[in-house]
């Protein structure tokens, strides 16, 4: 036990002085992750706000013949923009395809006559479906045009003594049950992704340094001749790795609890729901994951021949725990007892659930913690077994 503490303390001192390790522990998680989050939120806010309220300026061919329509559009913040190069469907299609305009509207020459003589008048919207901005704006214009069309239709029916209501046999209403915090779960899903990353990054260089690095600078062989069992050496090294991971996680959580309440999340219709209680809860939930991650990284790094090779493999390993999270976010998975057996997925789901402030089942919490610890224990046996190989010396 004493030897484990000696090894752990030495690894902490050693790595604390290493700039690369400190950068990945202190800079990546605690600084980079919240900063990136700020940028992401800002972009999202700008996009939502702009597509809903932005004053659009659109080339409308043939607007001269439709004064009423022009006024109707202008009242809904859509202005006709004069472009002499856009004169017909072909030139509009070219302008949109080339990206000069994100979309355009063509009013046919017969528009005014058709309207006067009760024939369907035709308007074409030119847009690019592969471009979300173009599609969004075209949709906005289309819905305004549809409203205009319905208004005229209603007036025509009234003129013939029929109530426009007969044209609306069914009224469809949407009823959105998502709470503001519930909606923020997507954003906070990305947050758990960052947290898992911060945990693994925090310990990555230690896991390499204590295995492949130790071998590369020839310090492993003399270390193995000290009267300390390899199991104790390994446990000392892994505890140092876990400590770095937990420090990285803690600092990242502090970073997020400082940043999140100041982000304009309410503009996205969300409230952050991230308090210091959430941070403490997330820390406790992710702590067993750090143990699992430390053993996994040490195991993989002890297979490799050099520092560089270890870096490559552990870089790939960083992605693995984020796959279940990505999957859960995309498929909008609900937490079930079976999923609590999937590490990283269970932590993700439980943090999300907590943020939504629905109740958390203590059983699921226990399952997540116990299963993760179980995997960590199993992995520790495998890692110790491999650390005892002769081939460890390379």
């Amino acid at each position, binding site marked *: 036990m004493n*030897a484990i503490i*000696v090894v752990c303390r*030495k690894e902490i001192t050693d*790595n604390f002085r290493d700039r690369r390790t400190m950068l990945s522990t202190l800079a990546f998680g605690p600084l980079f992750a919240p900063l990136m989050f700020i940028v992401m939120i800002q972009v999202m806010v700008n996009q939502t706000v702009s597509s809903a309220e932005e004053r659009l300026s659109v080339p409308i061919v043939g607007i001269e013949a439709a004064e009423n329509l022009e006024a109707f559009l202008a009242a809904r913040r859509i202005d006709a923009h004069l472009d002499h190069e856009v004169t017909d469907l072909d030139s509009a299609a070219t302008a949109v395809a080339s990206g000069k305009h994100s979309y355009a509207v063509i009013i046919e020459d017969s528009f005014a006559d058709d309207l006067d003589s009760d024939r369907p008048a035709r308007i074409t919207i030119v847009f690019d479906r592969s471009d979300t901005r173009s599609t969004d704006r075209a949709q906005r214009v289309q819905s305004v045009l549809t409203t205009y069309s319905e208004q005229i239709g209603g007036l025509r029916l009234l003129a013939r003594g029929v109530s426009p209501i007969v044209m609306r046999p069914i009224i469809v209403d949407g009823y959105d049950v998502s709470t503001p915090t519930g909606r923020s779960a997507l954003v906070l899903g990305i947050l758990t992704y960052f947290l898992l990353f911060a945990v693994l990054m925090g310990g990555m260089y230690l896991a390499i340094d204590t295995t492949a690095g130790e071998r590369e*600078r020839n310090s492993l062989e*003399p270390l193995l001749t*000290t*009267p*300390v069992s390899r199991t104790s050496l390994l446990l000392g090294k892994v505890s140092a790795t876990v400590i770095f991971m937990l420090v990285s996680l803690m600092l990242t959580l502090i970073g997020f609890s400082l940043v999140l309440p100041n982000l304009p999340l309410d503009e996205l219709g969300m409230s952050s729901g991230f308090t210091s209680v959430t941070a403490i809860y997330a820390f406790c939930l992710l702590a067993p994951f750090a143990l699992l991650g430390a053993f996994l990284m040490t195991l993989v790094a002890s297979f490799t021949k050099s520092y560089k090779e270890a870096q490559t493999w552990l870089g790939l390993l960083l992605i693995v725990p984020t796959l279940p999270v990505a999957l859960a976010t995309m498929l909008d998975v609900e937490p079930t007892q079976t999923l609590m057996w999937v590490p990283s997925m269970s932590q993700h789901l439980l943090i999300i659930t907590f943020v939504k402030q629905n109740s958390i089942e203590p059983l699921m919490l226990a399952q997540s913690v116990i299963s993760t610890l179980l995997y960590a224990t199993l992995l520790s046996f495998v890692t110790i077994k491999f650390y005892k190989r002769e081939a460890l*010396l390379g």
Partner: protein
Amino acid sequence: MIEVTALGKHFGKVRALDGLSFEAAPGRITGLVGPNGAGKSTCLRILSTVMNADSGRATINGIDTSADPLAVRRLLGVLPHGAGLYLQLTAIENIRYYGELHGVASGLLDTTIKELVERLDLGKIADRRAKGFSQGERTKVALARALVNKPDYLLLDEPTSGLDVMATRDLRQWLTELKRQGCCILLSSHVMQEIAALADEIVIVAHGRLAAHGTPAELTLQYSQNDLEQVFVDAVSGTVP
């Protein structure tokens, strides 16, 4: 006493040791010499318990290295090939770490480190990080580290490689001093001159087997050569004296 009996070890198809036997007595410096790839390092690795032999036996102070490696390690000081210091730690911290791993009580450890710093003339670099050390300084610190548990047995793998003349002379002086204190020293080298200048007993190894064994005087007599280097060449090429 270090006793190596019919030691065998292979890595895949390569036979590193093929029945090597020799002895090294306390209070003497035994030089393990042989061409590159003769099995010197493998032999030292088995003695320092980081590797197990396929066949044969190696004992230190009567303890089998594979049966009770921890007991063997308590008696050992090891200077492996390449000093293997922790570059972010200072000289003293490197030495202290090994003292703690050997379980040396902290009060005793302080005085031991003080003694070693004085004896190996480490004063100037004691509190500097190992990052910028010269090869000579690294070897010195690694030697101090190997001596921190006051070992009865000292194993050194190519200790003089990369050292300049002055550093080599210093090293020889320290080893001679340790020998006088009764330490059993086993060192390897592929340079006969190196061994000739230092060793009381010479063990010539070739192809994982013992090629010749004796004091420098015995060997020159046996091979009727004045030059130990010629003895080395003859012994390795299998010329029968």
